[in-house]
């Protein structure tokens, strides 16, 4: 039996196995280097002949030097087919002989052929199976999703980064709401399982921009209801959703002033939805506030008068945008992308109890009253 004289000696004794274990830890715990994994950058999902077809773009493990010369050269593609998205992804991955890694995926594009399919199941692959990066951009492609990945830009930028830039610019200008993975799955958790996704359309442009004179643009948006792609809405209606969801606080709107189009930039946007129970009906008051700034090509004598006029014109334009959006999305299609369920439950619980059992139909009967105030805080002359 070892006799321990002092606790101090014991401390030193215990340090030895501790150090050995720390050193041996890397060998004990099976681990995998990043270069040994299939780091997927983008995935496009289509549905053909009763099968999911997944096209993935991934880094081929080249050195950073080769990326610097032509970034697109270090990206490779693989296609997999399967009865589920998960199987199709696995098949695409198995062709490369590496385990899939979606933690760095930039964009997930769903083809138009998925219309009618349960998109929640598709997104579950990302959220539950592969722990995808929560800020992956999600979008729908008009036509085949895989066609989008084939676009090649002449400015040496990676195609998927270009898509990300297009999305971000649109979000910043208030044309579309945020369509990252987590905001979308959070929206899909409401009882009507509704969400919005932007639609990428391939359009013809100046041949200098891309190799084949085609680029991707967001011309409209897709509404999801019951977890399924329901309908397409116009760009102005999408902008209304973005304004009310109001997560980015900035937007822009075009008004007609002196027979000319003028772009008004909006900032510090605040939108408040206040439901009220009037009789047996719920009326939602939509109140907004925003700061506006504009520039014009000539100097006006009375700046104050012009600003007042522009404030009024902007208010009319915003109100019209919101009314159009609410009429189409809520009254016509019965889709809740504005967070109406939680707003009514939170602020008008009595009203919610009246309509909750028939919410899917009752949402179409909601009344909206839109009012707002715009304040011009900046103006200038464009030379």
């Amino acid at each position: 039996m070892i006799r321990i004289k002092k606790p101090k000696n014991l401390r030193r004794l215990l340090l030895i196995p501790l150090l050995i274990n720390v050193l041996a830890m890397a060998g004990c715990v099976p681990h995998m280097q990043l270069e040994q994994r299939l780091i997927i950058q983008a995935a496009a999902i289509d549905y053909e002949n009763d099968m999911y077809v997944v096209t993935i773009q991934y880094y081929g493990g080249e050195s950073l030097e080769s990326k610097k010369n032509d970034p697109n050269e270090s990206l490779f593609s693989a296609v997999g087919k399967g009865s589920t998205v998960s199987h199709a992804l696995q098949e695409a991955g198995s062709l490369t002989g590496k385990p899939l890694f979606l933690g760095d995926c930039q964009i997930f594009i769903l083809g138009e052929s998925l219309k009618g399919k349960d998109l929640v199941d598709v997104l579950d692959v990302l959220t539950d199976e592969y722990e995808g990066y929560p800020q992956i951009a999600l979008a729908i492609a008009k036509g085949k999703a895989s066609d989008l990945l084939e676009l090649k830009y002449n400015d040496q930028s990676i195609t998927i980064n270009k898509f990300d830039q297009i999305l971000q610019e649109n979000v910043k200008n208030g044309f579309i709401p945020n369509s990252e993975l987590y905001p979308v799955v959070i929206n899909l958790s409401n009882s009507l399982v509704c969400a919005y996704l932007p639609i990428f359309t391939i359009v013809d442009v100046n041949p200098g921009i891309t190799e084949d004179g085609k680029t991707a643009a967001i011309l409209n948006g897709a509404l999801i209801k019951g977890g399924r792609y329901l309908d397409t809405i116009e760009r102005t209606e999408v902008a209304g959703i973005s304004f009310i969801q109001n997560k980015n606080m900035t937007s822009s709107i075009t008004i007609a002033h002196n027979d000319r189009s003028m772009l008004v930039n909006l900032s510090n946007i605040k939108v408040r939805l206040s439901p009220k129970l009037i009789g047996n009906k719920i009326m939602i008051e939509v109140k907004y506030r925003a700061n506006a700034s504009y520039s014009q090509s000539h100097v006006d004598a009375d700046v104050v008068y012009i600003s007042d006029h522009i404030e009024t014109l902007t208010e009319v334009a915003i109100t019209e945008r919101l009314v159009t959006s609410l009429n189409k999305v809520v009254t016509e299609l019965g889709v809740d992308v504005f967070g109406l369920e939680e707003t009514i439950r939170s602020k008008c619980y009595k009203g919610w109890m009246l309509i909750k059992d028939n919410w899917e139909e009752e949402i179409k009967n909601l009344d909206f009253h839109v009012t707002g105030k715009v304040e011009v805080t900046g103006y200038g002359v464009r030379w």
Partner: protein
Amino acid sequence: MHAKISSYQVIAVMALAGAFAECMNIPNDVSEYTMQRFAVLIISNALLFLLCIPLIILSKKYPNDNFFSIIVQKSKVLGWIVLTILGLHLMAVIVFLIDKFEFYVQNTIMSTAASPVLVALFFIAVSYGFIKGLQAIMRTSIIMFYMFIGFLLLLGIALFIRMNFNYFYPTLIETPKTLVSEIIPEIFKKTEIYVFLILCKHIDKKPHRAISLYVPIVFSLTMFMNFLYTAVLGPYLQRVSFPFYAVSSLADIIILDRLDGIDLVIWTITTVLQVIAVLLSIKSMLSELIDEKKAQIATLPIILIVGVLSLFGATNRSRLVKDYSIILMGIVFVIFIVGMPIISYFIKKGLDKNDKNKETQKPEEAAINTAAN
């Protein structure tokens, strides 16, 4: 344990452990993550505070004693009986803690790590900390506490833009049935209170303050975390395995994106601290019955036994939860946290009365003896 630890050190360490346990909660197993969670937290913490009142009164009245030392003063045999029951329970608590730790590690970044390796490494760290003693452990963990608070505040600021306050709708009115079944486990799972029960003797200056401040502090931290979960994730919260990890990855701060590594480090350290604190409690009780050095050596086989039990538990998670259910923990909780402080308070009062009587009797006896002489 030569020098005493400060009450703030104990609060910080225990609050860190309590708050981090909340971070790593597994919603489907433990709690319903809805708006009801706020009601559950408010009611359970209020009840917990009420249950701790006897313990607070005992430590205020007798700051240099704990319930166990009072029982030993009364009878050593009774002391051994209490030590056996509470010791076995505390050992089960350790196995429970390690099991949760192992489950979390294997479900986050070390999915292929072998359980024996994890448990063995863990116990080597625990043994080292145990030998180092309470004072060193408390000092180290203060740093972790400030780090954790810093992260939490940073997270709150970073997530502000993603918050939707409309998610705070009154679901309590819609689902009141599950309220009681959620409140009871919420109280009984506060196993760290046992540490206060025994270690209050080693706390320097006003030990009752540590206990009375601990519950409100942990309550505030858990409320803040639940506020973040609900405001950011809304109804999606019920589908998320680790809500703290989910909201952290949504923050636009790069360091928080990679929180899986950082929180694993904090989680490991807090679990190590909790286990050491429980082991030191067992040692503290032993040292009331045998001398300090022997108590130290006698605790080492206990560490070994718990290590072996943890290995067994790590492979049978569901069975372990079934075998040592929260209800059984609740019975022990009520007996020791509520019952024992009340009983020992009256025992101590009785002992003090006897001492006083003896002291008053002594001069009288002396007077009688001198008179007889």
